[in-house]
C-alpha cells in the first residue's frame, strides 16, 4: 500500500502536469484560431472572394457602317455554330463521327478539335463547325439523340453586303493580335474582330462599343456555378457614311477593266459620294483568314487591287493642273486673263526646246483659249512669268500637296515641289523646272482625291475638305453643310476665269475635251483633260514619229479628267485617273461624262437622308474635320 501511494502520488503529479500541458496546447490553438480568423480575417476574406468570383466580359455588337441613305454596307450576321461539350458525351469520337455524317468535318479540322479537347477542361465548349446553314442545323437538331454533347449556339460575324464595291472605303476587320488585346482586354473574347483598314479601322473606337461584364461564381476547377451580377455593355455606334452605294457601284461598273480611280464629291461641302477604285477585292476574306494563293494573286497583280488608288495612288496631274497655274498668275498679278501668248508649237528657253502637244502650234492664246485648247506653250510662258513660289502656294490653297482631313488610313499627301525643297536638296531650282510644272509635269505627284478637292474648291469657291463620315450614332458631323466651310480667299474673278475656260474645254467648238460633253437637257459640265507622261520622251523618239499607244502598257501616259457640274450652279465635282490610258481626252473624258450623267440623274446630294437623322453639335470633333 505504501508503494502504491508513492506510485499514485507520482502519477497524480505527472498527470496534472501533462493535463496542464494539454490545456496549454489547446489554448495555443485557440490563440492561433483567433490570429487566423480575426486578426488576419480581412485579408483572407478578400482572397476567398478572389477565389470565388470570376469576372468575364460580354462582347458588345459591333456598330454598323451605313451609306448616306441608311443602306448597311458593313453589318453583323448571325453565325450559327456547333459546339462540343466533352463531358456531356460518353464517347467523343463516336459523337464526332456521327456529326461528320451530317456535316463533313475536314481532316485538319478534326485534328484541331482534338487538340482543343486535350487543352481544355471537359466542360468547356469547343467549336466544331462555324457558319452552319439552315439545312445543316435542321440535320443536327433532328439527329440530336445520336449527338450527345453537341450544342448549337449563335455568335456574330462581320458581313459586307456590297463586297468589292466598297472595299477600299469600308476596309475590313480581322482577328485581333496581342497588341490589340493588351490595349483592350475585350479582344481576348472569342470571335472578336478589330478594324484593320478603311473606315472599319478609322472608326474602330466608335463601332467597337464597350464590353459588358458578368460576375460569375466559379468553383476550384473553374466551372461556373451561377451568375452573380451582369452589366450590359454599350453597343457600338452606327456610322453613316457620305457614300451613295448605288452610285458607287455604277461608277465602279463604268471603270470596266481599267486600272482606274474616280472620286465624286459634293463640291459644296466636301462629302464624298463615290470613291471607286478598280480593281477591288472582297473584304470578307480578311474576316476568316486570307489564303496564301489569294494573297499572292493580289500582290502580284500589276493593277494592285489592294491599293486604294484614290488616296494612295500618286500621279503627275498633267494638264489638269493648268487651272492652278492660271489662278496663281492672276492672283499674283503676274498676268491678266487677256494677255496673249503666241504658240508656234514649242517654246525655246535656255538651250532647251519645250514642245506643245500640238505640233503646229495654237497661234495667239489668252487664258480662256489656253485652257480650252490645253495649250502647253501658253502655260509654259505663264508659269515662267508667275514663278514657282506663287504656283506652289496656289496649289496648296486648293488642297494639292497638303495633308487632307480624309478619314482613310494610308492616305498619301502627294508632293508639290518648291524652290526651297530643291535648295534643301543642295540643288538649284531652274526656270526650266517651273516651265514643266506649268503643264503639271516634273516633280509633282498628286492623288485623285486631291484633284477632286481642287475642282470642288474651284466649283464652289469654298475651302471644303473631303470627308466620308456623315453622322456617328445618329449625330450629324460638322462639315455636312456648305456654311461649315470658309469661302476661299481667291477672288471670284479669277475663279470665274478658270471655270469659263473649263466650260469651253468641253462645250465650245474646238475644245480639247468634247467627249466629256453631257447629253442631258439644260445641264452642262465644265472639265479639264490631262495626259501625264510617266516617262520622258526623247528627241529621237519624237523625230521617229513617237506614238504613246505603241508603248508597253506600264510606260503609257496616264489619262486624267477633272470636272464639275452643273456649270451654272456647281454641285458635283469629279476627278478621274485612268492609269496608262494614253490621252485624257479619249480615255478619260467619255468615262467622266457617263459618271457625271449618272450623278446628275441620281442627284444624291439633294435627296433626303434617312428619316432618323438628327442634327446636332456643330463643334468639330478633335482631329476629324478642321475647315
Amino acid at each position, binding site marked *: *500500500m505504501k*508503494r*502504491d*501511494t*508513492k*506510485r*499514485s*502520488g*507520482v*502519477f*497524480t503529479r*505527472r*498527470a*496534472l502536469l*501533462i*493535463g496542464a500541458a*494539454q*490545456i496549454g*496546447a*489547446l489554448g495555443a*490553438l*485557440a490563440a*492561433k*484560431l*483567433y490570429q*487566423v*480568423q*480575426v486578426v*488576419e*480575417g480581412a*485579408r*483572407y*476574406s478578400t*482572397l*476567398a*472572394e478572389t*477565389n*470565388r468570383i470570376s469576372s468575364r466580359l460580354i462582347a458588345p455588337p459591333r456598330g454598323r457602317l451605313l451609306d448616306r441613305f441608311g443602306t448597311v454596307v458593313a453589318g453583323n450576321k448571325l453565325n450559327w455554330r456547333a459546339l462540343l461539350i466533352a463531358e456531356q458525351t460518353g464517347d467523343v469520337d463516336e459523337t464526332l463521327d456521327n456529326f461528320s455524317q451530317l456535316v463533313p468535318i475536314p481532316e485538319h479540322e478534326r485534328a484541331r478539335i482534338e487538340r482543343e479537347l486535350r487543352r481544355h477542361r471537359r466542360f468547356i465548349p469547343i467549336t466544331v463547325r462555324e457558319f452552319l446553314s439552315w439545312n445543316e442545323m435542321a440535320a443536327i437538331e433532328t439527329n440530336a439523340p445520336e449527338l450527345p454533347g453537341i450544342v448549337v449556339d449563335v455568335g456574330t460575324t462581320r458581313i459586307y453586303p456590297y463586297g468589292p464595291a466598297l472595299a477600299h472605303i469600308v476596309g475590313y476587320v480581322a482577328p485581333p493580335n496581342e497588341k490589340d488585346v493588351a490595349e483592350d482586354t475585350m479582344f481576348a473574347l472569342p470571335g472578336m474582330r478589330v478594324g484593320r483598314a478603311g473606315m472599319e479601322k478609322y472608326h474602330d473606337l466608335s463601332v467597337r462599343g464597350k464590353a459588358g461584364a458578368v460576375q460569375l*461564381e*466559379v*468553383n*476550384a*476547377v473553374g466551372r461556373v*456555378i451561377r451568375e452573380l451580377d451582369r452589366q450590359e455593355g454599350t453597343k457600338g455606334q452606327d456610322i453613316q457614311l457620305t457614300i451613295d452605294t448605288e452610285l458607287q457601284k455604277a461608277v465602279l461598273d463604268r471603270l470596266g477593266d481599267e486600272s482606274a480611280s474616280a472620286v465624286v464629291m459634293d463640291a459644296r461641302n466636301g462629302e464624298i459620294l463615290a470613291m471607286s477604285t478598280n480593281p477591288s477585292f472582297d473584304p470578307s476574306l480578311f474576316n476568316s483568314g486570307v489564303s496564301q494563293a489569294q494573297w499572292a494573286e493580289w500582290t502580284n497583280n500589276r493593277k494592285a487591287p489592294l491599293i486604294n488608288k484614290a488616296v494612295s495612288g500618286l500621279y503627275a496631274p498633267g494638264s489638269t493642273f493648268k487651272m492652278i497655274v492660271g489662278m496663281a498668275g492672276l492672283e499674283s498679278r503676274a498676268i491678266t486673263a487677256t494677255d496673249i501668248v503666241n504658240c508656234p508649237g514649242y517654246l525655246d528657253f535656255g538651250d532647251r526646246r519645250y514642245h506643245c502637244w500640238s505640233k503646229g502650234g495654237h497661234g495667239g492664246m489668252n487664258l480662256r483659249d489656253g485652257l480650252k485648247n490645253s495649250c502647253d506653250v501658253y502655260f509654259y510662258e505663264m508659269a515662267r512669268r508667275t514663278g514657282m513660289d506663287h504656283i506652289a502656294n496656289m496649289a496648296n490653297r486648293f488642297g494639292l500637296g497638303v495633308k487632307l482631313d480624309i478619314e482613310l488610313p494610308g492616305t498619301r499627301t502627294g508632293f508639290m515641289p518648291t524652290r526651297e525643297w530643291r535648295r534643301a536638296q543642295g540643288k538649284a531650282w531652274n526656270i526650266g523646272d517651273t516651265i514643266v510644272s506649268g503643264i503639271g509635269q516634273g516633280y509633282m505627284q498628286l492623288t485623285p482625291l486631291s484633284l477632286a478637292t481642287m475642282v470642288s474648291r474651284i466649283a464652289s469657291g469654298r475651302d471644303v475638305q473631303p470627308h466620308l463620315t456623315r453622322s456617328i450614332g445618329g449625330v450629324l458631323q460638322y462639315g455636312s453643310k456648305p456654311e461649315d466651310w470658309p469661302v476661299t480667299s481667291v477672288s471670284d474673278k479669277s475663279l470665274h476665269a478658270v471655270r469659263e475656260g473649263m466650260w469651253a474645254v468641253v462645250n465650245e467648238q474646238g475644245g480639247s475635251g468634247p467627249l466629256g460633253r453631257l447629253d442631258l437637257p439644260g445641264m452642262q459640265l465644265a472639265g479639264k483633260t490631262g495626259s501625264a507622261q510617266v516617262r520622258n520622251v526623247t528627241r529621237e523618239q519624237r523625230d521617229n514619229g513617237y506614238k504613246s499607244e505603241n508603248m508597253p502598257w506600264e510606260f503609257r501616259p496616264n489619262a486624267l479628267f477633272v470636272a464639275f457640274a452643273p456649270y451654272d450652279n456647281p454641285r458635283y465635282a469629279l476627278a478621274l485617273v485612268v492609269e496608262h490610258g494614253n490621252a485624257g481626252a479619249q480615255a478619260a473624258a467619255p468615262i467622266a461624262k457617263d459618271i457625271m450623267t449618272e450623278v446628275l440623274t441620281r442627284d444624291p446630294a439633294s435627296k433626303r437622308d434617312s428619316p432618323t437623322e438628327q442634327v446636332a453639335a456643330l463643334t468639330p470633333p478633335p482631329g476629324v474635320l478642321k475647315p
Partner: protein
Amino acid sequence: MSLFERRLIREASFGLTNKLWQISWFYVVLLCMLASVGYVALYSAAGGSPEPFASPHIIRFGVGLILMLSIALVDIRFIARMSWVGYAIGVILLILVLKMGHTGKGAQRWLNLGGVAWQPSELMKIMLVLALAQWFQRATWERMGNILFLIPPAIAVLVPVALILREPNLGTAVITAVVGATIFLGAGVRWWKVLLIVGVVALCAPIAYNHLHDYQRARITTFLHPESDPLGAGYNIIQSKIALGSGGMWGKGFLQGSQAHLNFLPEKQTDFIFTMLGEEFGLVGGLALLGLLTVIIIGGMLMALRCRHQYGRLVALGISMNFFMYVVVNIAMVTGTIPVGGVPLPLVSHGGTAMITVMMGMGVLMSVHVHRNVEFSDGTDEL
C-alpha cells in the same frame, strides 16, 4: 491520500446493473454531442445532404457506441491479461499491411478485412497503450530504477513506430511515439530518462529525413514556405487558412462556406472538416468545438486520476493522450501550424477506422472508469 479515495472492491466482479450505473453517462453525452457536430459538418460537406457522408457517419457512431458500452462492461482485469495478445495482433496486422496492404496516396496504410478497408496503425496505438500499462502496472518502485527494466517497453514502442514509419505514415508514427512516452512518464520513469530517449530519437531525425519519401519531405518544406508553391503541395494549407480567415468571428453561415462548397478546400470531409466548420461558424463555432474537445480530453484525464489501480491510470492517460494528439495535430495542421499529416478529427471526420478505433479506446477508458475501484490480485505491490 488520494483525493478520490474509495472503498476497494475486492469481489472478483460485481453486478451488471451496478456496472451500468457506474458508466459516466455525462461523458457519453459529450461523445454524442461531438458526433452530432460531425453530422452537421458532414451534412454541409456533402453540399447540404445527409448522403454520402453524414448518414453513414451517424450509423458508424451508433455501432461504435454499442461497441464502447460493451467494452465498458468487460472487466478491466480481463483486458489487462489480454494486453499483450492484443499487442501481438496489432503488430501482425502492421506487418500484413506492409506485405499485402493496398496503397492510397503514395502510402500503404490500408488493409482489406471483410470488404472494409482498415488502417491497423489506429488500432495499434490502443494496443500499445494496453501493453505498456500492463508492463508498468506490475513494476515495483525499485524495479523502475533499473534501466534494464525499461528496455523491453522501449522496444515495444519502437517496433510499431518503425513499422508505421515504413508505410509510411509520419503523423501516426509521431503520435504513437508521443503516446508511448506519456505512459513512461505516467509510470514514474524519471524525466531525464524519458528526455534521454527523446533526445536520441531527435538525433536520429536527420537520418530519418533522408529515409523519408519525397512527398513527406515536400510536406515539411511546404509547411515552412507554403506560399512558395501555391498550386502544388502548399495549396491545401493556403486554401485552409483562406477558408478559416474568411469565416471571421461569426462565420458565413451553415452551408454558406464558399471555400468548401466551391471545392477550393481539399478533403473537406476528412482532414479539413474543422476548417469547414470554422468557415461556416467562424471563430465562435471553432472555439465552441475546441471547448467540447477540451472537456472530453480533461474528462479522460480526470478518469485516470480517479482510478485506484496503476493499470487503469496508465490506460486512461494513454487513451486521453491519444485523443488529445488527434485533436492537436489535426487543428494545428488545418491552421497551418504544423505540416499536413493525414490525421482526422476524431468523431467528426468522415472515416470508418478512426471512428471505430476511437470508440474502442473510449470503451476501454470507460471500462477503467467503471472498474476504477477493483483490486488487481496479480499486482505485486497491491496489498
